[in-house]
């Protein structure tokens, strides 16, 4: 128990240190690197909470794919962030108030892993008991995602796919007449600055 507390305290400290370093840095590539490190540590946190599947997703999506996507987007950005000297009192105040409200609300949540909490009473026992006979896939999370809530997953996949296709269509590199695209981009560049 005490060791569990020790590990959690260590992980939270490391995450806090990374977050402070993120605030201090001005180089864009370093921001992306630190974000990747942050999600690595966050996935460790999920492991200590016994949420292996979430940790898997965090490791592959948070630390892997999103880092690469950020990097690909970063190729269009300037190397350094601009210094911003405007008054930051109001944003800081709103952040602190929001955080205080969230912490205050978290006191009403049931304890982690409590069996009598409502989320473990309603439909989860059905899924856990029936999964092997109904569907026959060894992994319960997979059977919930792909079968019990199959329509949900189907809809989500369609939404994500449509969004991806739309982005590809918008950003398509016009290969037939590259001059056209280039002049357009140049015009936009001139307009922006």
């Amino acid at each position: 128990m005490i060791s569990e507390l020790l590990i959690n305290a260590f992980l939270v400290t490391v995450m806090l240190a990374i977050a402070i370093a993120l605030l201090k840095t001005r180089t864009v590539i370093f921001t992306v690197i630190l974000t990747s490190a942050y999600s690595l540590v966050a996935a460790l946190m999920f492991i200590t909470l016994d949420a292996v599947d979430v940790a898997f997703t965090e490791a592959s999506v948070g630390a892997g794919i999103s880092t690469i996507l950020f990097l690909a987007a970063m190729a269009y950005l300037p190397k350094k962030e601009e210094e911003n000297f405007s008054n930051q009192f109001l944003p800081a105040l709103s952040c602190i108030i929001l955080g205080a409200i969230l912490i205050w609300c978290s006191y009403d949540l049931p304890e982690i892993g409590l069996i009598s909490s409502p989320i473990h009473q309603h439909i989860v026992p059905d899924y856990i008991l029936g999964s092997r006979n109904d569907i026959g896939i060894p992994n319960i999370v997979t059977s919930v995602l792909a079968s019990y809530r199959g329509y949900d997953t189907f809809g989500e996949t369609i939404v994500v796919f449509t969004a991806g296709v739309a982005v590809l269509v918008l950003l398509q590199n016009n290969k037939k007449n590259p001059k056209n695209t280039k002049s357009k981009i140049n015009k936009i560049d001139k307009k922006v600055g």
Partner: protein
Amino acid sequence: MYLAALIACGISGILILVRIILGKTTFDRILAINSLGTIIVLGIALHGFYSGRPEFLDIAIVYALINFIGTIAVLKLFSTGSLGDIQK
């Protein structure tokens, strides 16, 4: 025993974090992040053994691969300025 090893991982993780935050050049930071990834892989495996559920090793394998791909992607962007084949 496992706890002692985990604490050693934690100490070296903190030392590496110091290098990440101090680091003069980008290469120092990339190198340190890569080492932090290795430490985290070891930490996951050790934590699995410590809590008596060595099934966590699957995640450690995924990490070991993701860490490599991430580092190579960062270095490629740093060398060529883009990830894809954008004609300049």
